[in-house]
């Protein structure tokens, strides 16, 4: 009787093959390019929100990762180098706990791209569901919600506000 037989033969090769596949997955996860997911993402001079904004990063833009520091990622976008907050270029799909683990395992770049948004059309709570809800509840004050959302604080103005108040940039 071969007691150690369970780790030999085709089964062993099959296991090695699967593990290699998993390792390859981890390897490709460390991609140098990330996708900007957040709208209104800004590129900053230093890794903090109080530093000089270098310009906006359009949603869906691909940025090359140069280095990382805490919650910040140093990136290059169209020849411009600066820092972007990690939540603007998430490494895990932002779809809640059900998908957290695969992102952690693969370390893959953001997966909720425009293509995914198209694929998600007609699923879950979407703009279409909101439109139907608004039609059903005409008394809801969505116009004011839009007004609240459209209000933007200029990043330079915010940086000045933080400086003046002796707050942490």
């Amino acid at each position, binding site marked *: 009787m071969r007691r150690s037989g369970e780790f030999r033969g085709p089964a062993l090769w099959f296991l090695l093959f699967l593990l290699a596949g998993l390792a390859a997955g981890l390897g490709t996860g460390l991609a140098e390019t990330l996708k900007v997911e957040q709208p209104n993402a800004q590129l900053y001079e230093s890794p903090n929100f109080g530093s000089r904004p270098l310009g906006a990063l359009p949603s869906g833009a691909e940025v090359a990762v140069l280095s990382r520091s805490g919650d910040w990622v140093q990136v290059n976008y169209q020849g411009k180098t600066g820092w972007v907050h990690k939540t603007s270029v998430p490494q895990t799909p932002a779809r809640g706990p059900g998908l957290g683990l695969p992102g952690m395992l693969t370390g893959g770049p953001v997966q909720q791209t425009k293509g995914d948004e198209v694929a998600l059309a007609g699923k879950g709570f979407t703009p*279409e569901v909101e439109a139907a809800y608004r039609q059903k509840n005409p008394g809801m004050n969505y116009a004011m919600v839009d007004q609240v959302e459209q209000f933007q604080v200029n990043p330079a103005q915010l940086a000045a506000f933080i400086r003046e108040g002796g707050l*942490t940039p």
Partner: protein
Amino acid sequence: MTLKTLRIAGLVVGVLFLAGFRLPSLPVPSEAGKAIDIGAKTGQKAVVASRGISDSEEYYVGRAVAALLLSKYPLSQNREATLYVNEVGQAVAQKSTMPRTYRGYHFGILETSDPNAYACPGGIILVTRGLIQKCQNEDELAAVLAHEVGHIANKDGVNSINRARWTEVLTTAGTEAARQYGGGVAGQLLTLFDGAIDDVFKTMVVNGYSRKAEENADRAAVTTLTRAGYNPAALAAILGKMNTQGGGGGFFRSHPLTAERVNAAKMLAREAPAGPKEQVRTKRFQQVRF
């Protein structure tokens, strides 16, 4: 089957299970059971992917909750005050555990003398003029906003959506279901959306969050205030001004009891003498006409 075969099978299943996590549609076992139950009930055979609420879905829930609140109270059109509240809010939010959300943080003032503040899922925070007027300085306003940002970061709003309802959303939204029911799905999703908004609004505005959720938001606020450079003792100061009467949701939640909450906030942050910059902040707060 021999013991050897069983062991090999076990190993292969184990590795396949690990590899399976790469598949984005793999259901979470505990949730999947429920989802499949509902699927079976409706005659749907597809495996339904179970997942948490996505950032964009949370955003649409938050917009509806905000729309409900804004149907109840008018939005202040005071541009100067709105800008100021947004500046304080942004200074605080970017130092929270969730510095960015799907469409960012946005702050608005509700025209009412009822002192309260509400954190709509996804990042819309509405604070009443009555509560701002109860604040004596910028740091107290920052404490209110940091507490609300804490609720958003902790996802307290969307966590009050009924679990079975959410499972049904996933079932309904599944590709197979969409194919099967065609136009009917939109109607069902609308009912579920309506119910979800009701769940969040009832917990957030009518009944209030749990004692634990409030404690956690207070704790998050103190950490955020410290990181942002505000005086963390401002939270206990503003909580101390709350009206002890009545219940309900929002900032001045009566459970945990006021005194307990103030004491807990005091324990988290010791009173420190106001620095010269705190005086600058107080001065600019006093200059804004709310």
